[in-house]
């Protein structure tokens, strides 16, 4: 069954205070950003009879701003705009790469970073980069603003820790203190464009002069109910030289940090193997 427009009510606040007021008055509202996920389900006949809080008029949430500590990306900034922004391009290339692999040009023009996060798909392509860049999510409610570390936004598959009445205002990403020696973003899907990931990885690696690991950050998407930082792998590698034995052990440890499943896109075994190969090639530099 197709979606029925007459079953839907739409509220179109002009600014953030109006949006928050409407949402606190009616906690059952469904916030709508770019609609690239919502409308797919709606077209298929789900999510009918809703009151939608359309955020598309909130101009102030469509800006990318430089701050002293980093960059602040408004929640309604599209994947396309992120790719075009000169500061994001030079400071956060992994995020740019991820945004370039979300859907095609059409989807990138509509889909927003805040919508992507609120949707909380296990396969969100921007999540591994946001994880290794250690982004913070600014959440607004009538009670004020709170800063939530990126990973704490997610509660499970398509579930966030956001409460009714709370809206994502922006995402802040701090500048890296030092240039990483290696960095990587890789998405593995059925085809180069438009596909949803089987596994998606982002990595940052800093080495000391003696080639031992000063800091490693590595995150995977599509490998657990939410994007995951490989904490066991990261702490194991700390202070070690990336010898073949150490890399082998790190790849074994990867299993402890994720819980991939068999689904329509791939199998647990394939996902693990490919993710281990990505980690291996990253650590081998």
């Amino acid at each position, binding site marked *: 069954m197709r979606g029925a427009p007459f079953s839907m009510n739409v509220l179109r606040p002009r600014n953030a205070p109006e949006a928050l007021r409407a949402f606190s008055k009616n906690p059952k509202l469904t916030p709508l950003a770019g609609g690239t996920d919502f409308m797919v389900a709606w*077209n298929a006949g789900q999510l009918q009879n809703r009151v939608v809080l*359309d955020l*598309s008029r909130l101009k102030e949430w469509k800006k990318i701003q430089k701050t002293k500590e980093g960059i602040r990306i408004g929640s309604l900034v599209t994947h396309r705009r992120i790719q075009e922004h000169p500061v994001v391009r030079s400071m956060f290339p992994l995020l740019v790469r991820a945004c370039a692999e979300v859907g095609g040009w*059409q989807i990138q023009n509509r889909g927003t970073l805040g919508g992507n996060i609120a949707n909380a798909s296990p396969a969100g392509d921007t999540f591994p980069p946001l994880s290794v860049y250690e982004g913070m999510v600014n959440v607004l409610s009538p009670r004020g603003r709170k800063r939530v570390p990126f990973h704490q936004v997610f509660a499970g598959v398509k579930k966030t820790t956001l409460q009714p009445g709370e809206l994502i205002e922006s995402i802040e990403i701090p500048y890296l203190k030092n240039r990483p020696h290696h960095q990587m973003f890789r998405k593995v899907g059925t085809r180069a464009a438009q596909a949803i990931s089987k596994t998606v990885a982002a990595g940052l690696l800093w080495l000391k002069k003696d080639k031992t690991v000063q800091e490693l950050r590595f995150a995977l998407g599509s490998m657990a109910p939410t994007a995951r930082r490989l904490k066991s792998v990261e702490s194991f590698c700390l202070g070690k030289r990336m010898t073949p034995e150490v890399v082998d052990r790190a790849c074994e440890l990867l299993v402890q940090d994720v819980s991939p499943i068999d689904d329509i896109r791939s199998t647990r075994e394939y996902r693990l193997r490919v993710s281990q190969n990505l980690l291996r090639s990253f650590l081998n530099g």
Partner: protein
Amino acid sequence: MISIEVNGEKRTFKGFPFKRLIDVLRQDFGLMGTKEGCGEGECGACTVLVNGEPVNSCLIPVCQVEGTRIETVESLGRPASPNVLQKAFLEKGGSQCGICTPGMLMTAWAWVRGGGSDKPQAIRNVLAGNLCRCTGYQHIVNAVVQAVRDRKKIIRNPKSTIQNRKSK
């Protein structure tokens, strides 16, 4: 009431605000050129330009495009006077069954008009959100390559006519 500019004309829509843009274009404005393929944002057949940028019109409730400038395939040339991109599609065999063609044209038009490159790989990336069920991609890419080059020629020398090629 929702006001939109469609193909250069001011239009208003008084129906349900959650009606999809594609349905408003086809049913309310009588612009049947835009096709619906998958209804999921995978195939790009429904691509139109909103403020010059390609989007899937099946994924947009019409209230979200209030005050914007929309271009559909009807804004390009007519059979008697195809634009540079349509001409290239005709000459290079870029259209087979035709269902993907309006979407292909609109995505490619945003690229060609925006001064995009004629590199086939860049064009393939640009068209990644448009599926051709006849799998006629090579001809489509060839057509866009030609359109990019022809448009540059026309801009350089407005009097040069790309019609010459056919009569040669």
